[in-house]
């Protein structure tokens, strides 16, 4: 009995202003968490820890690692899953789909006729001054119009429980392999929890991605050859490249495996050269083609962009997508949704301030310690200054940098990300989390993988959750609508009655022993 109170006491110890995902008030879990809370309460703390070790053992045996400062380490998976209700998920996935459609339209427009500039929704200078704006992307027109095959839209929940978009990732968003591996490890370790909940499966992601890549192929190909292009074994996300290639049943290639001739791409095989039609690339624009971008890239393929421009190969995600990830452009995305789709955004942005405006900048600089300041082209949490946690020197340096080049920075209200009970060294206590859902666009519709990667900042009070900052993750369960009845078992019983299995043949064990 002692253990039950012990676990639940640490479970609801959250005094911060942040939204607690599990509890509505100390001791009372939100409705969707009731069963999980009751079930986890039955575990001794030591037992919980044992399962946690089992999870990390599973990961190191399966080699589920990412490279962190040059060292391969398992990606920490927390034992307490994060739950999302059916209604909430419906809202989220529609909001993400809406956003991806708007971003697609935006990219097609700016690398095309530029209607949005003419209408004055966003100044042309904001787009062309983006470090990710890519002139070679002009006239590289994807056959089915899809530039964003895969999107990772980072979502956070604010203090009053509203979901908000923190940033868009439509270049080469990573992390989906951990969603798949997390689920695998959790079902092995916590089978009983799953039988109490009806959780949407996540393993259809590779099939969706494969379908989308096939749909993206040049139109004259009836049986297109698809490859995953990886920078190689030393890349932090190599594990993911392998997993996707394996689960889609396509080749994983490196730049040196490919060659371009007469605007066609080939891979070198033991039977000579074989044509390639769709490249799901996990190499950044800069390194992709030494003829167009950095000339000293050895992981790219010389001539690739011209092949794409001639329509013989499709590069996916498209080149130049980074403009949409630019954090200053991000502030205009709600406008894009209104402009291109004539809809109101379903998920709002976090309140963000454009520092090029003199009045705004003076106001922000006046109380810098209360804002989060981000470089517009950062990813992986690099270069972010969290005002309330920064020291005087950092703030002064930041103010200087902002004044120097206001285009390169944005300021955001410091959102206290929602918290979730998490197993840490001294028990279970609340830690900040975010969510990266993955959306796949096959040109017909945008499919959002149920759940996504919930990242958790393992340090107390820590607000940056990126894996490159030593964060961990949680398995994310999207619950199905409980009102849909289970019909399967009745059907199967009926089927079994109609079947006559022949009896197993007797072996020779025991023969002649009498």
């Amino acid at each position, binding site marked *: 009995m002692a253990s039950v109170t012990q676990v639940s006491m640490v479970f609801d110890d959250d005094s911060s202003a942040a939204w607690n995902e599990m509890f509505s008030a100390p001791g009372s879990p939100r409705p969707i968490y009731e069963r999980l809370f009751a079930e986890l309460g039955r575990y001794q703390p030591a037992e919980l820890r044992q399962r946690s070790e089992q999870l990390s053992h599973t990961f190191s045996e399966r080699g589920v690692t990412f490279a962190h400062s040059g060292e391969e380490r398992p990606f920490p998976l927390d034992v307490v899953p994060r739950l999302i209700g059916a209604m909430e998920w419906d809202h989220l996935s529609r909001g993400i789909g809406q956003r991806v459609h708007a971003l697609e339209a935006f990219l097609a427009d700016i690398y095309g006729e530029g209607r949005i500039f003419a209408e004055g929704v966003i100044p042309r200078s904001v787009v062309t001054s983006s470090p990710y704006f890519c002139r070679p992307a002009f006239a590289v027109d994807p056959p089915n119009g899809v530039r964003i095959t895969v999107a990772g839209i980072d979502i956070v929940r604010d203090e009053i429980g509203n979901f908000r978009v923190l940033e868009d990732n439509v270049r080469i968003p990573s992390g989906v392999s951990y969603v798949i591996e997390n689920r695998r490890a959790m079902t092995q370790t916590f089978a009983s929890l799953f039988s109490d909940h009806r959780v949407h499966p996540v393993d259809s992601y590779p099939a969706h991605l494969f379908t989308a890549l096939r749909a993206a192929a040049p139109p004259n190909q009836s049986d297109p050859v698809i490859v995953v292009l990886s920078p190689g074994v030393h890349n932090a996300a190599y594990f993911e490249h392998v997993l996707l290639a394996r689960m889609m049943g396509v080749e994983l290639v490196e730049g040196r495996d490919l060659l371009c001739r007469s605007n066609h791409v080939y891979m*070198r095989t*033991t*039977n000579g050269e074989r044509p390639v039609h769709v490249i799901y690339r996990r190499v950044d624009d800069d390194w992709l083609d030494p*003829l167009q971008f950095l000339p000293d890239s050895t992981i790219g393929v010389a001539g690739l962009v011209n092949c794409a421009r001639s329509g013989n190969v499709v590069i996916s995600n498209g080149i130049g997508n980074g403009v949409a990830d630019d954090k200053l452009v991000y502030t205009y995305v709600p406008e894009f949704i209104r402009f291109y789709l004539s809809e109101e955004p379903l998920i709002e942005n976090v309140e963000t301030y454009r520092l090029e405006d003199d009045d705004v900048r003076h106001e922000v600089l006046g109380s810098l310690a209360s804002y989060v300041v981000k470089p517009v082209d950062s990813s992986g949490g690099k270069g972010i200054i969290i005002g309330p946690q920064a020291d005087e020197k950092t703030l002064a340096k930041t103010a200087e940098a902002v004044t120097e080049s206001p285009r390169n920075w944005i300021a955001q209200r410091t959102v206290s990300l929602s918290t979730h009970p998490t197993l840490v060294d001294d028990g279970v206590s609340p830690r900040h989390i975010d969510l990266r859902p993955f959306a796949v666009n096959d040109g017909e519709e945008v499919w959002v993988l149920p759940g996504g990667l919930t990242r958790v900042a393992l340090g107390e009070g820590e607000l940056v959750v990126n894996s490159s900052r030593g964060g961990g993750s949680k398995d994310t369960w999207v619950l199905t609508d409980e009102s849909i009845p289970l019909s399967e078992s009745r059907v199967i019983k009926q089927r079994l009655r109609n079947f006559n299995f022949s009896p197993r043949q007797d072996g020779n064990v025991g023969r002649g022993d009498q």
Partner: protein
Amino acid sequence: MLSRLAESLYWIGRYLERSDDTARIVDSYVHRMVEDPFNDEDATCRSLYSILGIDVDSDEPVTTEQMLQHIVYDADNPNSIAGSLSGAFENARRSREFISSEMWVALNSTRNRLPQMENTARRLGPSQYLLFVRERAALLAGLIDTTLSHDDGWHFLVLGRSIERIDMTARLLRGRVLSEEHAPDWLAFLRACGAMEAFMRSTREIHNANGVATFLLLDRLFPRSVLYSLNLADTCLYEIQPSSQRIATADLARQSLARARGRLEFMDPADLLDQLPELLEMLEETCVRINDAVTDRFFGHEDYVVWSREGGL
């Protein structure tokens, strides 16, 4: 299939076989050193070095500890057991999308457990470590056969395994040719190849050196014999690139194989012991030639190309 991938699979085959065979050879030598009251440690270690192709410059006596460190535990030496396993692992990392996840997990956990096995071995002697390596090799061989499609990739893997096996069996036999008094006896060789029972059933001439050598080189049914491995390697090469030529073959690797096979198939077993040194040398050269031919033909190496800006010189 991708040339780079084919090369990785070929080397997984070679490195796994190398770790297995090295464990078997070392085990038989260590056993001999323990059992033989007149054993000269230095000379035995040196003869082991020599059959594994390791040069020793120093005149200092080589101790068993040093030998084990060098041939078994030293991961920086690509020919040691730990080094071979790490080579197999690195190649598996590069071909992870091709191999089955069960095979990957088996290799990964082998590598993860190696340091712990080494610690134990340093306290209790190498035999548990060597047994572990052999068991993992058997586990992996089973997974390779039952969880991979027997397609080109698998054939490259088995080709690598066969070539390495020919090379290692030839080296094992060279130990006897080189210095009889410092090598395990013929029966120990049979045990090292796991061939004891198979040999006994095929013949009754237990103490006949000629019989053992004949069996390990010429037996058509025993999977570790040289002739068997030559045949298997040839099958793999044929499957990878079936030839419809009616006359001769343009495949240099298959030519070398055929020559070695012809030499072994049609010799009088009674002459075997006399010709042994020359035969073993021929086999090792054959392995090198096949390796080079396969590398040339299928792995098509392409160096990295570095571009620079115009006028940037």
